[in-house]
Structures are given as C-alpha cells and as structure tokens.
C-alpha cells in the first residue's frame, strides 16, 4: 500500500492509501471531535462534527473528515472561525435534545455552546446511529432500526428479535451518548412481554 503525505494543522502526517482524513489525523494523535464515528463501523457522516477545511490546489472546501479520503499534498485545518461557529451551533442543536449527555457537555465547554439556545425537545435521541449500525454490522442481528424520517425519525427495537437477543448482548448500550437507547429497550421489553397490546408492532407515530 502506497503512502500518502498530507498536512494537518501545519503538521506533516503520513497516511496509507484508503485512509480517511479522520483516520490519518487520529493516527498522528491529532484530535477531531466526533459523535457518530466508531472504528468498527462504516462511516455514517451524520453528526457532521468532524467537519474540517481541506485545500486541494487552490480549492478550499469544508468536508466531513470521517468520509473524505486522504490525498497526496492535502492541506487540512481542523479548527477555524467558521468551523468553530458551525460546531458550536451543531452542539447547541443537540443540547436541546440531551443536555445531560457528558460527551455533549464537554463539547459545549470547548466550543462555548449555550445549552439553552434552543427550546428543549421531547426526544433525547441524537441520531448518531451507533446502536443501529453496531447491531447490523458487528452483531448482524438487526434488533434495532430506524423508523420514519426527518424530525419524526426515531429508533425502535423489533420486539421479537430484541427479546431473544438483547439480554445476552447489550453491547450497544455503552455506545449511546445519551442513554436514550436503554430507555427504548426497557420500554420495548415491557410492551412486548406482557402489556395489553402484547407484541404491538412498530407504527408511525
């Protein structure tokens, strides 16, 4: 595999072919914030926090480093006024859902995010997709999935599969930045095992 030389925040970094900018940065010990990234999973590109500025020739553009492949002679900046502004407002949008999340609180401090900027939302899922993707790609059980789209999007367990598999697994629980996942699981378990609707299926809310 050939080597690629690029520059991140002024530092010379060597990456191997096929590496993303994020992987290259992490291998060189340069920190870029992420929420939906996991080394065992395919890049999702959902949280957009890992956004960086890349310079290719005379072209400057903003890209998400978890997806963008490292290129020879690429110049990357992980912080700038605009990038910081964007990350701040992204964190503020997330804090409206999950103000207590430790990960979000750390990011809020770093970027000066105001947790009360936006009105609190009812759901505290932040759609990082780690639970869904982990169960699909690593455990290959597909016990939990997405439901609906846009602002109505939720995660939901398939009761039949979850009842069989989850008690012995629960590997996705610690991945969840907001603990929403545990709540969803407990709810599904109680609905499925005994409630009057017993085994009620996923419905559009």
């Amino acid at each position, binding site marked *: 595999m050939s080597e690629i030389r690029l520059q991140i925040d002024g530092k010379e970094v060597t990456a191997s072919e096929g590496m993303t900018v994020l992987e290259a940065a992490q291998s060189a010990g340069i920190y870029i914030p992420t929420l939906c990234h996991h080394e065992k999973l395919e890049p999702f590109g959902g949280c957009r926090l890992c956004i960086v500025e890349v310079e290719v020739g005379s072209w400057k553009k903003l890209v998400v480093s978890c997806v963008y492949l490292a290129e020879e002679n690429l110049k990357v900046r992980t912080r700038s006024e605009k990038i910081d502004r964007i990350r701040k407002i992204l964190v503020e949008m997330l804090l409206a859902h999950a103000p207590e999340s430790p990960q979000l609180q750390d990011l809020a401090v770093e970027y000066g995010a105001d947790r009360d900027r936006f009105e609190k939302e009812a759901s505290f899922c932040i759609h990082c997709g780690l639970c869904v993707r982990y169960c699909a790609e690593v455990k290959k059980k597909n016990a939990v*999935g997405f*439901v609906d*789209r846009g602002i109505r999007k939720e995660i*939901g367990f398939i009761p039949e599969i979850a009842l069989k598999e989850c008690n012995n697994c629960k590997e996705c629980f610690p991945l969840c930045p907001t603990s929403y996942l545990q709540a969803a699981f407990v709810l599904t378990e109680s609905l499925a095992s005994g409630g009057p609707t017993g085994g009620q299926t996923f419905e559009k809310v």
Partner: protein
Amino acid sequence: MDIERIDRIIDRHQCQPSSLIQILLEIQSENHWLPKEALERISRKLDVPLSRIQHIATFYKAFSLVPKGRYEIHICMGTACHVRGAPRILDTVQDLIGIKPGETDLDLKFSLETVNCLGCCALGPVMEINGKTHGKLSPAETIDVLKSYE
C-alpha cells in the same frame, strides 16, 4: 392478506432484494395497507432484515401500517396549490370529516393525506380521491365533492 398472495407478488420480482420497495408498493396497492405478517414474510423470503423493511415502510408516504379508509383523500400542498389557497381546502376537509392528515375516520370511510405536488398545478387547489382528481376547488365545492362520496 393471505400468504399465497404475498408469495405470488414476491415471486413475480424473482425474490430480488433490490425489488423490496417495488414489492411493498404492490402489496400496498392490492391490500391498501401493509400487515405485519406481510413484512415478516418478505423479510424471510428476501433474506432482508426486518429492521430495514420497518424503516422503508415508515420512511415513505405511500405505505401504511394501519388499514386505510375506502376513500383515500390526497390534498396537494405543492407551491402552486398553496399560493392558490390549498390550506383552506385542507381546513374544510378536516372540519367536515373530523380527521387530520395521516388519520382515518372511525367508519373506515375516509383517509386523509397531504401530498407534496400531484403535478396538476394548473388546476390548483387540487384534491385527489381514489385516483380521481378534483381541481380549481373552493371550500364550498370541496364540501359538495365530499358529500357525493357514499
């Protein structure tokens, strides 16, 4: 919906996973909704995770996981219709039938959905019921049209 009908539709598409959405569309069209048994059957025959089918069935407006009414009302809320007063038509229908978009009345007679453009912009505001398009509506005309459906 019986398993044979579902199987026939799946086999017509050669059990191809890439035809998942097409299969769901056919079942929805024949049955007017997607029962859970149908989704489980498709998951097994196509070897596709049920969670993916769950996502697709809830992602797209064409699918319903609950039974629909005999008459499906679609009110166009596209830009041209909006500018010509579609919100008032929607209010009129909601008031008359007593349901909101996404709902079905208790008699299973009418189901209401809003659509983002039916492509009949010259006739705005437009309401489509079971494939029949009614255009250039006023609130009073809307009431007449609805009353004509038994």
